[in-house]
């Protein structure tokens, strides 16, 4: 049975591993896009302007309320049309195909961003207002106060929540297999179809997903410890 996983042209080992690599690539890219979108979203939610608040609320409400799979379908079937339309505005004629990777990262990143926005908003609110007031009183410029005071403390509160979002994002990448991106889920599906051994290949995939999440859990724990340096925990 294990020879099914041999490396090279005779087995599925290299295909599955390449799929796992693609899964990590998509997950990391989506998560980073999500952090960027989430920061914008959190800034919007905490902004004084009504327009910014409304836009950010609409983003998190809609995206968190709609299945991720549906967003992938919308981008997969609507994405090419939309990009072609934009390209034509710039005088390009012809059809632009959006590749499965771009669709996948955009879709999963959008979903991930909506959850990150809520985590970051909560973390910013958890930082005592006196901290920023003190920074101002010390004469820090707004940017310096943002960089030195707000971000490190926000991270401390946000990291556990972001660890959750990361796990969700990693698992959401499996949904992109419907757009035929050659990631772990898709490769296991193809291997099980070709060999008629679905249980074996899906069990291997489950193990690899578990390895990724357990590994990244450890990384997040270290990051949390780093962010909490200088904070003593009550015994």
């Amino acid at each position: 049975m294990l020879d099914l996983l041999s490396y090279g042209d005779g087995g599925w080992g290299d295909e599955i591993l390449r799929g796992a690599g693609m899964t990590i690539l998509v997950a990391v890219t989506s998560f980073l896009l999500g952090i960027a979108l989430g920061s914008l979203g959190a800034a919007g939610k905490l902004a004084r302007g009504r327009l910014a608040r409304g836009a950010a609320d609409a983003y998190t409400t809609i995206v968190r309320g709609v299945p991720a799979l549906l967003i992938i379908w919308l981008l997969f079937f609507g994405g090419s049309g939309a990009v072609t339309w934009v390209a034509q505005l710039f005088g390009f004629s012809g059809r632009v195909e959006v590749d499965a990777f771009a669709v996948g990262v955009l879709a999963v990143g959008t979903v991930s961003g909506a959850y990150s926005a809520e985590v970051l908003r909560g973390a910013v609110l958890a930082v005592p207002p006196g901290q920023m007031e003190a920074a101002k009183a010390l004469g820090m410029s707004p940017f310096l106060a943002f960089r030195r005071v707000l971000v490190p403390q926000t991270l401390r509160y946000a990291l556990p929540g972001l660890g959750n979002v990361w796990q969700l994002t990693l698992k959401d990448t499996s949904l992109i297999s419907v757009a035929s991106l050659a990631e772990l889920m898709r490769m296991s599906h193809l291997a099980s179809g070709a060999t008629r051994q679905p249980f074996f290949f899906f069990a291997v995939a489950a193990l690899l997903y578990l390895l990724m999440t357990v590994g990244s859990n450890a990384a997040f724990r270290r990051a949390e410890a780093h962010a909490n340096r200088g904070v003593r925990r009550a015994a």
Partner: protein
Amino acid sequence: MSKRIVAAALMAAALLAGCGDDKNDAPATDARGLPSPIRIATEGAYPPFNYFDPSGKVIGLDIDIVEEMCRRLEAKCEITPQNWDGIIPGLQAGKYDAIIAGMSITDERRQAVAFTQGYATTPGYFVTLKDNPLQQVVIEPPRLNLNEIDPAEQAALDKLKTALKGKTVGVQQATIHANFLEKYLGDSVSIRRYDTQENLALDLASNRIDAGLADIIAWKPFLESQPGQNAKTFGPGLDGDVFGQGMGIALRKEDTKLLEAFNGALTAMKQDGTLKRLSEARAGFDASMP
């Protein structure tokens, strides 16, 4: 500051979302009005029709047929693997021009897409134990299409009916094979229905039924297994009528020129025996249809 950021984000989102109802530019076409290249989607998880080999290349009978067809049409073809979910919407969205994925022609699918003539079918076969006296009965021709039954086919059907008279035949319930038994042999055999093909094969192997009827693809795992070594197909391979119209290549309804070209190539490949040869080489059985 954040206002400006939000405005920029909104504009980007609006650009990305765009409007979905725009007219796509028609893809490049050649002098015959066929798309060039012809982009063809397949699933890649349905052996022996389309599947990946361990080196990551998509192969199978569907691919063999498409390559031969494109060679005859002197057209450039590109094969794209596409997940089965959304394979028809992808065709309609213009992501490719045709689907060859072991797709059965059904009336429901016909409402959405156009189909070429059937290019392949998985014939139904009776299977009995090798020491069963039924194995002595020789029935010609080896394949029986039930769409238009000619005298020779009628004779074969009658012979089959006589041989199976009073026998117990197992079949998976609610399948086209059960429909066949009811319609053609209902008055001469005693039908035993099973919930799964595996249970049917188990009872056949332990001699509780005289014969079983199922798709050749469904039989394959059993016939290749240890208990299946004592079993063998019996009688002709059945297709047509209740067995459906076989598998077709799906196209957008408006692509009539491509449909004509594909149908022409398929007819030629049926007449000179290419389809039979390709399917015997790839799948180990004759999947061609008349």
